[in-house]
């Protein structure tokens, strides 16, 4: 049965956008914790710690997010967990975000002049104090713009969760399209909602980047 594309469908699609946001938030929070660990490991003095972090980044940046999603999805069965699209998508996107944020934040930590660390060491600050009070606050300023930029990439990435059957924005569009067969209208609407979510973040990232550049050149 083919029915008309109605306001109820638009509401259904818009309420599914909530899951896109929830999934993005989970992946971003998880990725922030993972990414910070990766960035600290990557800049640490332990040779093996640095190597493992570099390897982690290279593997996750060198393979498609779609494959990562499939691997985690089918991997749940391997470790004896029930197959659950939300869990699989959350885990895969968290790992993905950890690698990308880890790389962005490593760059930010390394951009803080080494004299800062040396001065903090000379003041007998311990590693945690040095990081918390001296290096990370400065790295944070450098990292903000690219981090917001990555958030856009992450929100777009959650659309792939639809392929393993998780009903977020894109999957809701597919469901409505299957019932109404108005692909031009349906996928146009879906694209418009993604655009409304992502564009302000892109503008914000660009604005912060210009401000940062001006602050550095001054």
């Amino acid at each position, binding site marked *: 049965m083919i029915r008309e594309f109605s306001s109820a469908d638009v509401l259904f699609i818009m309420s599914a956008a909530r899951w896109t946001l929830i999934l993005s938030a989970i992946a971003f929070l998880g990725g922030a914790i993972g990414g910070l660990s990766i960035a600290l490991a990557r800049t640490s003095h332990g040779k093996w710690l640095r190597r493992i972090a570099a390897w982690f980044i290279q593997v996750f940046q*060198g393979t498609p997010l779609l*494959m990562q999603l499939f691997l985690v999805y089918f991997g749940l*069965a*391997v470790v004896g967990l029930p197959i659950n699209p939300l869990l699989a998508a959350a885990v895969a996107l968290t790992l993905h975000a950890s690698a990308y944020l880890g790389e962005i934040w490593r760059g930010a930590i390394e951009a803080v002049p080494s004299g800062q660390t040396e001065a903090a060491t000379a003041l007998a600050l311990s590693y945690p104090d040095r990081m918390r009070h001296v290096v990370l606050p400065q790295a944070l300023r450098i990292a903000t713009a690219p981090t917001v930029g990555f958030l856009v990439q992450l929100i777009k990435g959650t659309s792939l969760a639809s392929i393993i059957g998780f009903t977020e924005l*894109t999957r809701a569009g597919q469901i409505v399209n299957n019932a109404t067969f108005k*692909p031009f209208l349906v996928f146009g609407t879906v694209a418009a909602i993604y655009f409304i979510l992502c564009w302000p973040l892109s503008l914000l990232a660009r604005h912060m980047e210009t401000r940062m550049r001006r602050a550095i050149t001054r």
Partner: protein
Amino acid sequence: MYQFNFQPVVDSMDLLLHGAWLTVRLSLMAMALGLIVSVLGAIGKTSGIRPVRWLIDVYVEVIRNTPFLVQIFFIFFGLPAVGVSMSANTAALVALVINVGAYGTEIIRAGIESVPQGQIEAGRALGLSPAKIFRYVVLKPALRNIYPSLTSQFIYLMLTSSVVSVISANDLASAGADLNAQTFASFEIYLVLTIMYFLLSLGFSALFAVIRRLFFTYPASR
């Protein structure tokens, strides 16, 4: 306890290798056409004509702020509704070119703007034609300046191309999906696919390093 079974993957390795070749071919075509779109887009954006600049801005922002998956759905399922239909393989290539063209436009525009004005004036003083100035004085140094970001965008394009399997266009991920439908050795298949994509990305990195050595290592400043 899960029993690993790699036999189906080993038996169908030729199928997967063929799929990998299709992914390489699709990516190379999308990179070449995408580079053309990017250069044209960047020329349009740095030229003075306002409506052209405005149109390119819309194109770049729309593509960069919507997921590739939705773009390919729109092209493959949405466009036939307004009379533009194409095969899955064509739709995949078109979607990839449009996608990478938007990122490439921004990257190359930044490269063109990084070329100092004095260099263009020097070219003019030497009596070079505008076309030659663009080719040798603007585009080549611009491409060298943005070579790392452009090539990492190209590798990202190759990874993204796995998404074309959702419309059953022919590539490595599709070959894996077909094999999965026949054998259900899902985890093993996707593990091998992931490793193959990783090797492809290493291969492309190596290729781009060679191209850089061959064409972009002339003296930068003296």
